[in-house]
């Protein structure tokens, strides 16, 4: 393995070990939260709602909950890791090393994307306790999950570089991520919205992610999945390039 690859592999390993070795922080919260979601929205409310888009309500919300958990954890992992490293200055061990900026960004983004994907798998596992989890379009399912995890890991890196204290991270999560998620058609179909709000909803990238994963799992879609995947891939590449530019400029890292 070349020296450059060893450098990137080392940083990915460090990042992944950081969350894997803290299972109570990493794996327990999504299990508990999604057990509650499935209990309330799937069992209690779902039994009154009946079917949505031809499937049971619990099966309808499952893809949305997978996306919700995955992107939240990808974002939070990247933003926390970068910001905590800056706060305690130990990120200097990386920034003063002979690593390429591209390698550093690739490592932070991919490690956080891995966390997002692990969370997605966990949520599917919890969902299987309550219902079946069909996979009708596996390539789309994997494609949407990977792209959304990478996109939000990249956004998390920006958050980690831009934050000036821990409250900033909370604000990003509560005031940016959560509204996008809850208006992202996780819990409802776009068909139930009036035409104006349906159009406004299409400005929310979450809608495309949830719709794409829903297509991958239960085969139901309201937007062309290939267009969604292409747009999200473009967004992920753009965010990666922005990450790269920020590291090259030393944004949040260099005086």
């Amino acid at each position: 393995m070349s020296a450059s690859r060893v450098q990137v592999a080392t940083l990915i390993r460090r990042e992944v070990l950081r969350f894997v070795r803290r299972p109570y922080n990493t794996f327990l919260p999504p299990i508990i939260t999604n057990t509650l979601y499935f209990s309330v929205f799937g069992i209690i409310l779902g039994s009154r709602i009946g079917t949505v888009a031809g499937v049971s309500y619990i099966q309808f919300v499952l893809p949305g909950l997978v996306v919700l958990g995955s992107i939240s954890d990808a974002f939070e992992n990247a933003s926390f890791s970068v910001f905590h490293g800056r706060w305690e200055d130990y990120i200097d061990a990386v920034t003063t090393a002979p690593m390429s900026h591209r390698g550093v960004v690739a490592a932070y983004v991919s490690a956080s994307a891995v966390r997002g994907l692990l969370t997605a798998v966990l949520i599917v596992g919890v969902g299987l306790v309550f219902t079946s989890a069909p996979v009708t379009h596996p390539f789309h399912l994997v494609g949407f999950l990977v792209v959304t995890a990478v996109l939000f890991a990249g956004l998390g890196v920006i958050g980690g570089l831009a934050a000036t204290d821990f409250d900033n991270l909370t604000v990003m999560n509560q005031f940016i991520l959560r509204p996008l998620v809850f208006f992202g058609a996780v819990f409802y179909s776009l068909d139930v919205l009036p035409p104006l709000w349906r159009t406004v909803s299409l400005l929310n990238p979450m809608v495309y992610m949830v719709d794409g994963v829903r297509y991958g799992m239960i085969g139901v879609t309201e937007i062309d999945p290939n267009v969604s995947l292409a747009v999200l891939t473009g967004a992920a590449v753009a965010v990666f390039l922005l990450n790269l530019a920020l590291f090259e400029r030393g944004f949040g890292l260099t005086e």
Partner: protein
Amino acid sequence: MSPPAISVRDLQKSYGDVVALDGVDLTVPAGSFFGLLGPNGAGKTTFIETLVGLVRADGGEATVFGHDVEREYRAARDAIGLAPQEFNVDRFFPIHEVLEHKAGYHGYSRTEARERATRALDRVGLQAKRDEQFSQLSGGMKRRVVLARALVTDPDLLILDEPTAGVDVQLRRDLWETVTDLNESGTTVLLTTHYIEEAERLCEKVAIMSRGRVVETATPDALMDRGTDRITARLRDPPATAPDVAAGDDRVEDVWMEGDSLVVTARGGGLVAPGLVRALDRAGHELVDLDVSRTSLEEVFVDLTDAGRGGLDESTDPEADALAADGGSP
């Protein structure tokens, strides 16, 4: 001829209106043990952080072993091992993994990184603590970890920023023994310190910084030669007033009686003393004891930095002002 370990020309850095580096020129020869002295806020840490990329200079050039620190940053950083003042160590991992990660960031495979971490921990005497986390260690051990992390890549240039601040005498001696061994095996050492006697004892050459500039570069001996030495000659039957025994020697600055001793202050006291002894003998004074105290590097340091600072007080130094403007957070 190999390039110097560090070559810096007209290096400049400002934080708003505050000038931290005001055209620094400095060359550190490869293989040397070089001291960088200066009062708080002189710009020493800013200078070091410019070399490793934590600070981006506004102007000027800096190279490490011939590699520009911005254009060829990967080659420059690969040559450097930095032990900073702050304890900026990853607290999520046991210390042997912290060192393994650092070696990995420099491109060493996991197997080699593990071996290097073990050697570095041996070198600083922390093998028994390898599975402890940084936060569980004492202050002195933490300082050793920071040094071990700098050593784990076997750097060609070892930069030590106030490495003995707040450590006990034994640890300080251990650290200096380790670093001296490294220097003797070819590693260039750049040391910043407040402990002037350390620089005096260890460094082949020192640069003195004040207000963002290098105000002097010389060997410790050459610097001390510029100071005023003190010769104390105790006499058997001391006269009431100082005898005129130093007339005509323009190295002598002052002569006075202090109890039963004649005190002479002079530049190059060691050279003045023999003539003084002969003059006392000729004048019929019996010498009981003679002491020549060389000026200390500290006194020369204070003179130079006072001159560089123009007599300004601490609150006017660039780094202190920059930190204050930044809310006090470095």
